[in-house]
């Protein structure tokens, strides 16, 4: 049986290993290699330290499999993933559509994903809230929010 905690520790170990490899590609100015402290010093120290800690964690997980605390069953992965997709979509549509349509659509989609089915709430609340927020931010506080299609 796979020890999930050990897998997580191994993934993090791989991450620190990749960071260590990435350190070698940090450019240095001539002469910096011999300096006491260079732009590579801190990342290198952290990559080594992190990798050592992950190995220790890996050993801990393998020596005490009974302490594996993670149970990944019973979670609502679908809705969580859909919310993440909604956030990505919000980021993609924000500039082209503009703040007001993108935010109203984002809130509406969020409500829908989480099970809200009342049409009035799904449509009116996001639009009214977004317009009020937009007015406060742009007119009262003078902050910029991408106008998008509303700019004409």
């Amino acid at each position: 049986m796979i020890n999930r905690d050990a897998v997580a520790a191994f993934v993090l170990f791989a991450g620190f290993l990749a960071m260590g490899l990435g350190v070698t590609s940090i450019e240095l100015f001539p002469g910096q290699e011999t300096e006491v402290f260079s732009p590579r010093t801190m990342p290198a120290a952290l990559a080594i330290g992190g990798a050592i800690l992950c190995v220790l964690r890996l050993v801990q997980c393998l020596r005490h499999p009974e302490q594996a605390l993670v149970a990944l069953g019973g979670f609502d992965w679908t809705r969580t993933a859909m919310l993440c997709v909604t956030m990505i979509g919000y980021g993609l549509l924000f500039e082209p559509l503009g703040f007001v349509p993108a935010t109203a659509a984002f809130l509406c989609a969020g409500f829908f994903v989480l099970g809200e089915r009342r049409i009035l709430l799904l449509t009116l609340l996001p639009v009214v809230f977004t317009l009020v927020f937009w007015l406060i931010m742009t007119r009262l506080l003078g902050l910029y929010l991408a106008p998008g299609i509303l700019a004409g």
Partner: protein
Amino acid sequence: MWEGIASGFTTLLAPVNLLLVFTGCVAGTLIGMLPGLGPISAIALMIPITYGFDPASAMILMAGVYYGAIFGGSTSSILINAPGVAGTVATAFDGYPMAQSGRAGTALAIAAIASFTGGTIGALLLMMAAPALATVSLSFQSPDYLMLMILGLSAVASFASKGRVLQALIATVIGLALSTIGTDPSAGVQRFTFGSLDLVDGISFLLLAMATFALSEALMTVLRRDVDRSGAGEGGRPALGSLKLSREQVGQMAPAVGRSSVLGFFVGVLPGAGATIASFLAYGMERALAPAGEQRKFGHGSVRGLSAPESANNAACTGSFVPLLTLGIPGSGTTAVMLGALISYGVQPGPLLYQDNPDVFWSIIISMYFGNLILLVLNLPLIPYLARLLSLPRQLLVPFILFFSLIGVYLVSFNTFDIHVMTGFAVAAIFLRLFQYPMAPLILGFILGGMIEDNLQRTLTLYDGSLAFLWERPVSFVIAILTVLVLLTPVIRIIRRKP
């Protein structure tokens, strides 16, 4: 001094100035509640409004906004686990679990009272010892700062609950590693940017805090199928919890607030150290001092765990005015904006401010105290209304939390790339949390990472790679001893418990 205090009170008690401090507190609280618009943004927004005011009135308004924004940040930390500013991250550790367990009102009341007390003690210390402390703060050098940051990092020990020491340490290193992304501050070399211009400036604190705290928490409630929040009472209304604190709670709060306020003020006096380190140090200190039974409550709604960082945070904010008013050196981003504002009003902060503009000097100090008082009077009655936010059904509350977190970060960078990065970090945070890796050490490592690297570089260059500063500089030596003591406290406790 007494004449100055009397003159400060006379200026402040003018009806216009009273109205200004009140308006500032209200505006600051509302602005501070929105992630992304912390004290810096709130004060910057006020500068154009105050151009026509006399300097004393303008600074009175600013002080109100400043404290209001800090309290507003604490409110969003407690209610929705969204610390909009670094100084309120530690507030969320116990404030949010308290709100989730149906004690949102109690948590907000503790935060308001702790903030008020911290600000009051800070203002008293500021009145008494500002000039002397300014000289002391200047004597701190890079090695001392480095040791102070490492002492701050030792607060990680507070988050390493039983059997999770390695996870806490790994999370700290991940936070430190994330702080190295972007342009290296000393040489200007790009690190881990993968050729992306969006990463040249690195990852912002706000982005990481919102992703790992607010976004990941909101998504976790969906993931865990939390149908009803545990804070909801009968009829779907939130169980607000009493606003009245019990004698036991006051007894727990009082010593924690006293200690943390003094600690916070002195840390705040040091330029660059600020409210964040003060709040983490206070949290770590209180946990270390707490008896074993109370220690277990930390992270699960401890009264001491909430009141300590809140009071330290506010006291540190007051302390940060010491170098500003007496030396003209801004010790934090917020005081830097205030310095700019003061100069634009024709007032030059520094050693001569006390002589040339005593009305401004004392008005600022008195208005700080008064701002705290107004905040307490204003916020206690508002708490039931603020806590009602939690009564929103989950299907509405979660998308709003996601929206406020995303837009808060966007309003700082105006770059939609950050929205994608935030989503990525939120997903990573969910996995880390599922595997019992705590988020607090990660954010602590991230906050301190840049400062540690900066001071480590200067120190090693200054001492030619030697660690001699540890015993050659008395301040560094004392802080190093303190750090060792903090780290050894759990070990000593374990040894003492064994027969």
